[in-house]
């Protein structure tokens, strides 16, 4: 059912990775992504792959969940790989009319493909092990030093968490509106793209009106509960670093040092 959809598909499990502070995981994921772009040859994947596999095992997220995360980007992945296969210059290994595959293209395509897969793996592992709320909290805290330069860290985090709360509600409402219009003979599944877009109007308008009404109601309810921005607010569940987070950061330091040193020595 629609109300069961969650953003960033959290995988509930009791692992030490799940228990890490969200800030640790956000920093870790960011470093991981940066590291993916620090090397230019295949041996680098060995380091990244080992480091990632270690975390994956600790997180107790099954591998098939990780693979499932690839499904939505399968087209992009194929496109990137094939573009590299066919459009690179160099030593030709296969040719058919104007299409040709080069050795360099093969290598580059595979390299890009593996990099993209590891990129998706890394970010989905974060969303699998961190609830959307924790993510929002983590981001708020990480960006809060920027408040000095008037960066609205609290406001952005609040907006994100409200969006997370209302997306399933609005999705369910959209479904109900669609049915109400279908009951009036609306035909939403046939015709060309323009006709279909036009057929969506009777769903879109009531949904928009309702979203505005909800926004207005919620703003009033928040005001009535003394909300007045981030100033002077305390937290019911403040983020606290634990010993595990220290190990987490140590792991990151070691990992980044390995990558950078290998890069300096031109090994990868």
């Amino acid at each position, binding site marked *: *059912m629609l*109300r*069961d959809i969650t953003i960033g598909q959290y995988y509930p499990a009791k692992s030490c990775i799940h228990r890490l502070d969200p800030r640790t995981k956000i920093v870790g994921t960011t470093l991981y992504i940066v590291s993916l772009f620090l090397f230019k040859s295949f041996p680098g994947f060995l380091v990244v792959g080992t480091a990632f596999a270690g975390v994956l095992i600790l997180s107790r997220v099954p591998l098939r969940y990780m693979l499932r995360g690839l499904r939505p980007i399968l087209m992009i992945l194929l496109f990137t790989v094939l573009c590299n296969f066919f459009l690179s210059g160099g030593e030709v290994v296969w040719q058919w009319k104007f299409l040709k595959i080069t050795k360099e293209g093969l290598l580059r395509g595979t390299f890009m493909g593996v990099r993209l897969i590891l990129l998706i793996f890394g970010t989905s592992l974060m969303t699998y092990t961190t609830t*959307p*709320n924790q993510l929002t909290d983590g981001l708020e805290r990480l960006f809060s030093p920027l408040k000095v330069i008037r960066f609205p860290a609290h406001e952005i985090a609040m907006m994100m*968490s*409200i969006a*997370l*709360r209302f997306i*399933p*509600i609005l999705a369910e*409402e959209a479904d*109900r*509106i669609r*049915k*109400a*219009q*279908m*009951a*009036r*003979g*609306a*035909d939403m599944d046939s015709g060309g793209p323009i006709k279909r877009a036009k057929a969506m*109007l*009777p769903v879109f*308008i*009531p949904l928009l*009106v*309702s979203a505005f*009404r*909800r926004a207005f*109601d*919620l703003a*009033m*309810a*928040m*005001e*009535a*509960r*003394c*909300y*007045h921005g981030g100033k*002077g*607010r*305390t*937290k*019911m*569940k*403040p983020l606290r670093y634990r010993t595990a987070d220290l190990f987490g950061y140590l792991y990151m330091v070691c990992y980044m040092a390995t990558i950078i040193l290998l890069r300096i020595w031109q090994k990868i």
Partner: protein
Amino acid sequence: MKPVTITGLVHDYVTRDEEGNYAESRRALDHVDLDVEEGQFIAVLGANGSGKSTLAKHINALLLPTQGRVLTCDMDTADDSYLWEIRKSAGMVFQNPDNQIVASVVEEDVGFGPENLGIPTEEIVQRVADSLAAVGMTQYGESSPNHLSGGQKQRVAIAGILAMEPRCILMDEPTAMLDPVGRREVIETVRRLNREKGITVILITHYMEEVIDADRIFVMSDGKVAMQGTPREIFARVEELRELRLEVPQVTELAHELSLRGVTMPAAVLTPEEFVEAYRANYPGTVYAEPPIAEKRPENTDPVLSLKDVRFVYGERTAFETVALEDVNLDIFQGEYIGLIGHTGSGKSTLIQLLNGLEKATAGQVLFRGEDIYGEGYNRRELRSNVGLVFQYPDHQLFEATVIEDVSYGPGNQGLSKEEIRERAEWALKLVGVAPEQWQSSPLELSGGQKRRVAIAGVLAMKPKVMILDEPTAGLDPAGRDEILGEIDRIRRETGMTVILVSHRMEDVARFADRLVVISDGHILYADTPRAVFRHRERLNEVGLEVPQVTQIMQMLKEDGIPCREDAITVAEAVESLAASKS
């Protein structure tokens, strides 16, 4: 210290044009005076648009007086420096349960208020635990609000207010969007908080049953306080309440009607027990044998719709698999008026969506005029214009710029000619009683009752053979509800259409339906005349449903040894019977 003191309060809603200049103003509150004592349970009654919500927003300083003064816990709401102190002292629960829950986890939402007040973490945790316990929601602390029922969500909202440790709770129609079970949950919760914790409660509502044990009732009309007093004082003025578009509970109405017929009755009877006692005290003991009420059974023509061994499963072969309907067999005949009863989650929403093909049964057959709607090549879009379905919230279907265009949407989809579309739209609007002056206005600007009418017209314009209405009176005040139900009954008589009315209110279906279909737990429990169904009071109570209050009273009298028509299902029938056994 007084929780609320209001003197000479005036509120004007000012509309401005695009340049921000004054355009017009509407007076919502007109010199209101109101006093609330500490620890009281106060009810504010009033029809839609009588100004009662505006009043509540003043107490919470969400609105500021145009004239006059509002003191909340001795603090002037016009004084800016008291703003947060006022909102902390007088917490407010709103009508829509979804639109006031901020967080995606129950306990975090309850903690939202204290977080805003800057309470230290350990104390927030303690307050959240206490508040959830006070509303009986401890076990749901870590749930997502999306998985709770309406009543549970409102209890979470109340807990969110309690966590700010208020002296007073304002409730702006907190039960208007709930089913009877949820309504009871919420009212019992606030009543307990009022009694046990001494928190002052100000409850705004138009459900009379909720206010019978209030300490004081204020009745609003046209922005003024039209009546005030104890429930007994207020409910004694039955006619005046009716003029203010309100009603009294059936038991009070029954006693009132009987006293008009010369039966000695106290001024305002509030509960069935009181009634039985009062009636027995004056009962002369003469036996009056009554002829049975003639039952109108539907004629056995060919059914217009039939369900055969229908089973419906949600999310088949997933973790969320739930059986919504099982072993459902039902024949619906042309021209019948069916009341479909069952509480939220019983499967009744699924059932009505099966009837017009919006959902497809997992197993079994649905026949429209003998034809299988799942048959190959069957035109389900045409079926939907034959079996019209009006959903609960008119806002879910109104989208055009004008009323007439919106009503034309359905017939437009049927591929009719321009003239025919126009003709049908006008016919439908006239039938539901929307005046031509309103045809060019935007449907979004209409009142709640008018919106319902336009939504019903939007389906009627397709000239369906069967019309299904899902809770067409939800959120309307008593007079508005009676008007809509009256329209539906009249339309049925004028067009010979089959009507299926989904409702929580037994009193309504008892008055109009030829047959009741009671659904519980995905099964049809009863499908019979209202009179026959209401004989099963105990079984109905077991599944969380109630018989009309008047039927309950008659059954209690009968059990008490007073011969009367225990199968009376309307106040009129009960009056007939009781006034007769009297003489």
